């Protein structure tokens, strides 16, 4: 009993000592700092809770998150729809391959100036950029997922004379969902990068605008809080998404486990 408690305490300790030590080192090294660039961590955290818990959230964080959510939603809808189409029509996909590869390997951030020329600086521009940048991994992964559905399963759906819609919604999409989720996960991190990048280039609201303003007013402590906030957002979105994926794919892991135990002859 005592031993197992000790072991658990030890295993928690080993996971947390480094982060705690790093933050403590930062705290101590920056305490009483007079440097313009490195304000004391205590000041940064005090300012952080003043700003982001939660008085500045509606003004500066909410617009960014709204653009992110809207753009990403568009990317998922367009990406999955087109992905299914390209997955079903092999020839079409093969013909579009070169175009897709060029689009996918373009550093999306460079589209910001062009988007500003078309839409001006604002929400439309941000949403279009986020959607266009994050649609590619979703589209290509959905296509792969649909293509890799066991041909036998496709034959079965045909012999049961399922309609196209039933086949897509009841068979192909569920079967491709592990790949679709992997694609959307990549899409989320691209979308966040695009949100941050496009706002830092030019913006009229949002967290990027907040940062640009701190740059002009040389409010360094505020800038540190924004960088920490963006780091936390990145972490929360990524781990949150991994968690959702884990829950949604429970059936998939269960299926794989049964399959492999069947293969081993139980």
């Amino acid at each position, binding site marked *: 009993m005592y031993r197992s408690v000790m072991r658990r305490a030890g295993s928690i300790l080993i996971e947390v000592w480094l982060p705690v030590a790093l933050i403590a080192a930062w705290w101590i090294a920056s305490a009483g700092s007079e440097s313009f660039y490195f304000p004391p961590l205590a000041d940064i955290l005090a300012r952080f809770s003043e700003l982001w818990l939660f008085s500045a959230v509606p003004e500066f964080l909410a617009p960014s998150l709204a653009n992110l959510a809207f753009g990403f939603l568009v990317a998922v809808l367009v990406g999955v729809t087109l992905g299914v189409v390209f997955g079903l029509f092999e020839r079409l996909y093969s013909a579009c391959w070169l175009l897709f590869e060029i689009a996918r*390997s373009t550093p999306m951030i460079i589209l910001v*100036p062009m988007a500003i020329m078309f839409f001006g600086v604002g929400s439309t521009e941000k949403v279009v950029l986020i959607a266009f940048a994050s649609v590619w991994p979703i589209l290509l992964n959905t296509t792969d997922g649909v293509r890799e559905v066991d041909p036998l399963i496709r034959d079965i759906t045909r012999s049961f004379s399922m309609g196209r819609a039933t086949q897509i919604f009841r068979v192909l999409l569920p079967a491709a969902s592990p790949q679709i989720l992997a694609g959307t996960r990549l899409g989320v991190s691209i979308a966040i990068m695009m949100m941050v990048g496009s706002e830092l280039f030019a913006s009229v609201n949002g967290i990027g605008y907040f940062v640009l303003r701190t740059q002009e007013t040389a409010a*360094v402590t505020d*800038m540190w809080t924004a960088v920490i906030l963006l*780091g936390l957002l990145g972490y929360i979105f990524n781990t949150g998404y991994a968690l959702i994926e884990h829950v949604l794919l429970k059936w998939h892991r269960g299926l794989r486990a049964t399959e492999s135990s069947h293969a081993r002859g139980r």
Partner: protein
Amino acid sequence: MRLQDARTRATTTHLPRIAVVAAALATWELVSRTDVNSNTLPTVGEVFGQLISLLGDPSVWGEIGDTFSGWGISLGIAIVLAVPLGVLLGRSVTAYRSARFVVDFLRTVPGLAVIPLAVLLFGTSLPTELVIVVPTCLWPLLLQTLYGARDVDVVLFDVGKSYGFSRRKVFNRIIIPSCAGYTATGLRLAAIMGLIATIGTELIAGTPGLGFALASAQAVGDDLSVYAYTVLISLVGFSVTMILTRLEREAIPWRASSRPRS
């Protein structure tokens, strides 16, 4: 026979692909000529003309050089840091569990978010670029090397032991070759993400290079150059991706993903 194969492959695979790209360009041309929503979208000819005249200008080659040197230096630093660290974290459970949270947190920080701080500290010089790009390249390299180091066949260690290998020899002859495949994948990912980060930093922070040239063209309202630079950078990204994918396949030909699909 082989020639025949190559020929049918060209007509059935490559021709439709080129046709689709041509169709996309034709659509662009059509839109620019009809001038639907009074956008002053230039024609394909104008943009590629501008691109060619850019490429005739030596200063553009200087910008390309700046981008590639910032990218290359960052990749070099990332390799030097990530590979030993990856081997350490892959071989030592204690080290791995100690570092897990820090690595998980830091790799999800959007690199571009640090630009304002870097600009404040270093202005628009090379160190700003390094502060953003080195971490971007670091994580895929570190994680892939870590997986590789963890995946070393246990039997190989026994073999090494029975041959009386020193620790150093075990490292050089067993761990490094086993990691190589994983690290190669990490290197490709790091290189592609690094190029994006390099150009992104140039665009936003104004460090010299192609991204900054694009931002300057936009700032002075030289629309045609904005298009030309966008096309140029897109083609650079595409070529780099293709070359790296090809290189990885050549370097590690036995991997399943490298084998041609039947």
